[in-house]
Structure formats: structure tokens, C-alpha cells
């Protein structure tokens, strides 16, 4: 399948890319890894007249750790999965190592993924749970935008015309913190049926100090489950409290029935994922090594 013909512009720097897009207007799009945009263009659901290619701009793919983790927007998911620095925050590894399949992870970028703001995307719940910031550059200059204010709706972000993401900044979690991101999928290359990100900080081995819980896929954007956070915060983590967290997650989910499963199936799945994610996050916060990843069913 061929996309509609378009004209090609290879940017040598972000300022040049922004200038090009400003001049070309609404018929132009940035191309990052292309793992969502190219399939959409092949199906002609997207048909830009111009592509401004960001792939050849030097020094846009990196992971630096200096008090916080700074990830270049063009960093591929596989590079994040392989990074020793990023793996120090296990929830980032859960996400980056589980997105789609190896081929897609080699091309897809963190910046492209969050700029698309697909409700089924993996990064949004994880970056929300870790309190990340999105650094942008546009015709009006640089901005730092809290991820919670960056993703506005399904496929809608705070990016202005010709503005692009340059970096994603993830603060290093406090001592005795642990997180987990788990998505349920039918198989690797398809969209997830449900996903959840949990980040916990403990007082001691059994008592939670702080909690962040975000449900993915089952709403127009990732949904904060404040009821679940309140059930965990400043309380012992027990089998009973985890059951209540699962109920709170199931309560907030807004699933719809489709080829990925019935609404009820997805609601039950969200509850099961919540249990697994809270247990995994708590173990990691206690210093245990636990692997977690996308689940296939």
C-alpha cells in the first residue's frame, strides 16, 4: 500500500524542523519513528502533503542521569529498554521492553509515542505515575509541561502548531519506592486490552507512604485512580486493601466492548492487573528484584 504522495524535508536541527513546519502549515507533519504515522498514512487515514523528517537530527537520542533521568525525544523504545540508567526505574523498563514487538521497539520513539497521545499507548500511564515533565520547543520558544497537562484528550496534546517534544524528564523516585507497569494484550503487535501503572513509596516494609495509580487504555486518556491511591496512602498494604484497590480500579474503568474483548472482560482484567501491579510495586519498593512485563492472553 502506498501513502498519498508527499514532499520530503530532512531537518538538520530542531529549530530548522520547526521553521519548516511553520512555513509548510497544516498540511505538514513531523516524522519521528513512524510506527504509528506510517501505518495511518498507508491506510490514508492520514495524508500529509509534507513530511519533516526528524530522524537525521544529531544528538536527539540519549538517556542522561544526573539527579533526574533525561530522555531525548528520538530515543527508541529498545534503547530505553537496554539502558542501565533507565532500568534503575523499573517501571520504565516494564514499559519500554514490552511495547509492541522487537521490530517496532527498534524504530518507535518515546517522543513520537506521547505526541500521538493514543489512548492505548503505553507511555502515558507510566509517565503520569512517575510525575514526568515534557520539554518542548516551538516557534514561541521552549516550554516545560507537566505530563498531566500535556495530554489533554485522546490524540490531543498541549503541543501548539509546529511545536515538538525535545526531551522527557523523569524524576528519580524517592528511597523505598517501586513501581510496575503491566499491560494485557492478545499478542505482541496489537493494542492492549487494559493496562495499569502503579508507583509506591513505603514507610517500612508493610506501610505505604505514597501511591500513584493510573489506568491505561480504558478511557480516552490514562485515568488517575485517586480512590485506589487513598486506599494505599499511609496505610498497611494487606490482602484486604489490595482487594479494595482492585474494586476501585474496576469502578473507574470505562471499557467498551470490541474485538479485544467485552466491556466486562476488560473491567475484570483491569482489577486483576491492579492486584499484580500493586504486589509487584510493593516488592520492588522493599528492594526485591521482580520481573514484570506485558501479559499475553
Amino acid at each position, binding site marked *: *500500500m*502506498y*501513502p*498519498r*504522495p*508527499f*514532499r*520530503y*524535508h*530532512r531537518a538538520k536541527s530542531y529549530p530548522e524542523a520547526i521553521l519548516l513546519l511553520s512555513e509548510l502549515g497544516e498540511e505538514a507533519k513531523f*516524522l519521528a519513528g*513512524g*510506527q504509528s504515522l*506510517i*501505518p495511518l*498514512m*498507508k*491506510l490514508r487515514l492520514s495524508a500529509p502533503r509534507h*513530511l519533516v*523528517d526528524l*530522524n*537525521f537530527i544529531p544528538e536527539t537520542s540519549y538517556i542522561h542521569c544526573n539527579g533526574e533521568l533525561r530522555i531525548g525525544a528520538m530515543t527508541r523504545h*529498545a534503547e530505553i529498554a537496554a539502558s542501565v540508567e533507565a532500568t534503575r526505574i523499573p517501571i520504565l523498563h516494564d514499559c519500554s521492553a514490552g511495547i*509492541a*514487538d*522487537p*521490530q*517496532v521497539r*527498534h*524504530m518507535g520513539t518515546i517522543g513520537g509515542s506521547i505526541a500521538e497521545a493514543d489512548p492505548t499507548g503505553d507511555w502515558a500511564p507510566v509517565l503520569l505515575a512517575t510525575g514526568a515533565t515534557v520539554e518542548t520547543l516551538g516557534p514561541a520558544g521552549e516550554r516545560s509541561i507537566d505530563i498531566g497537562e500535556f495530554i489533554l484528550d485522546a490524540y490531543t496534546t498541549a503541543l501548539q502548531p509546529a511545536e515538538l517534544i525535545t526531551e522527557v524528564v523523569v524524576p528519580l523516585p524517592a528511597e523505598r519506592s517501586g513501581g510496575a507497569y503491566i499491560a494485557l494484550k492478545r*499478542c*505482541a*503487535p*496489537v493494542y492492549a486490552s487494559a493496562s495499569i501503572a502503579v508507583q509506591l513509596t513505603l514507610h517500612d516494609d508493610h506501610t505505604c507512604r505514597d501511591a500513584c495509580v493510573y489506568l491505561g487504555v480504558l478511557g480516552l486518556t490514562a485515568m488517575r485512580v485517586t480512590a485506589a491511591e487513598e486506599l494505599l496512602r499511609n496505610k498497611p498494604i494487606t490482602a484486604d486493601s489490595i482487594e479494595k484497590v482492585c474494586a476501585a480500579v474496576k469502578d473507574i474503568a470505562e471499557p467498551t466492548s470490541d474485538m479485544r474483548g467485552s466491556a466486562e472482560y476488560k473491567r475484570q482484567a483491569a482489577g486483576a492487573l491492579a492486584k499484580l501491579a500493586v504486589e509487584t510495586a510493593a516488592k520492588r519498593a522493599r528492594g526485591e528484584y521482580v520481573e514484570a512485563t506485558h501479559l499475553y492472553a
Partner: protein
Amino acid sequence: MPEDISRVRISVKVNGKQYTREVEPRMLLVQFIREELSLTGTHIGCDTSYCGACTVLVNGKSVKSCTLFAFQADGGEVLTVEGLAKDGQLHPVQQAFSDCHGFQCGYCTPGFLMSTVQLLEEHPHPTEWDIRKGIAGNTCRCTGYQNIFRAIRAAAAGEGADIGH
């Protein structure tokens, strides 16, 4: 003269040989490989980034060549299934797929071979889980995967072929 942006000049090394072509920007890497270079070992299966039949390595990393524009490989090195055998000798991964009958109709095989080469590069001694993750982006509608798993295990163990290839 302003640059003609309705064409893009790309230079790509494919299986060790340098090619320079002017192509339409919308040309996908798989079309470049098959139609411009006549290397038809790389197959188009689903054409929607699902099945992995079109998997090739670009700069040593597996990608779905139906979901890459040809210009994204500009200046890079591509390895396709035609580049695996050397001096008339099958690559150990090809030999293992042959020995273990890791295919049936064979349509998906080039993609599985390339994903397996990538997998064994990262995990020379893969666990069952590594194998599952490594070929998760490839679909086979004939075999039920059992012989593909056997072939990958055999290739990793260096059975029946010269693994030092």
C-alpha cells in the same frame, strides 16, 4: 536551483553492496528492496506492521520494512535474507530451520530468519521466554510454532551447522 523534494536521493548498503537511487519519498523500504533492487526474498505479508514477514535488519536492528520509508535507511546498512548465506553455505539459522523443518509454506520464513538472527545476537543462549519475546513480532499461520522453536533452540546450541559463520 531549489532541491526537488518530490524525489529523494538515498544511498544504502544492502547485503554489503552499495546502492544509490532516486525514489519517491512515499516508497517504503520493502518496496525499495523488492522493486528497486529485485531482492524478492523479503516478503510483504499483512502490509500493516503486524505479521513481520517483511523483517530485515537496518544497522543491525530488526525492523518491519513495510513500516519504514526507504529514506529512513539512507546512509545505513540493510541485511536481508539474501545476505545470510555465505559462499554457498547456509547461515546456521537457515540450516537449523531446514534441519528442524521450521516452516511449512515458507512465506513467513524470511522474516522469522531475520528475527532469529537478531534474537541470537542479543541472547546467544536464549531462554524459552527470550525466544517467545524475540519472535513475538512474527506470525506463522502454518506451523503452530513448535518446529520454529526447535529450530531456534538448535541454532542457539550450534547443532547441525557451523555456528562460527
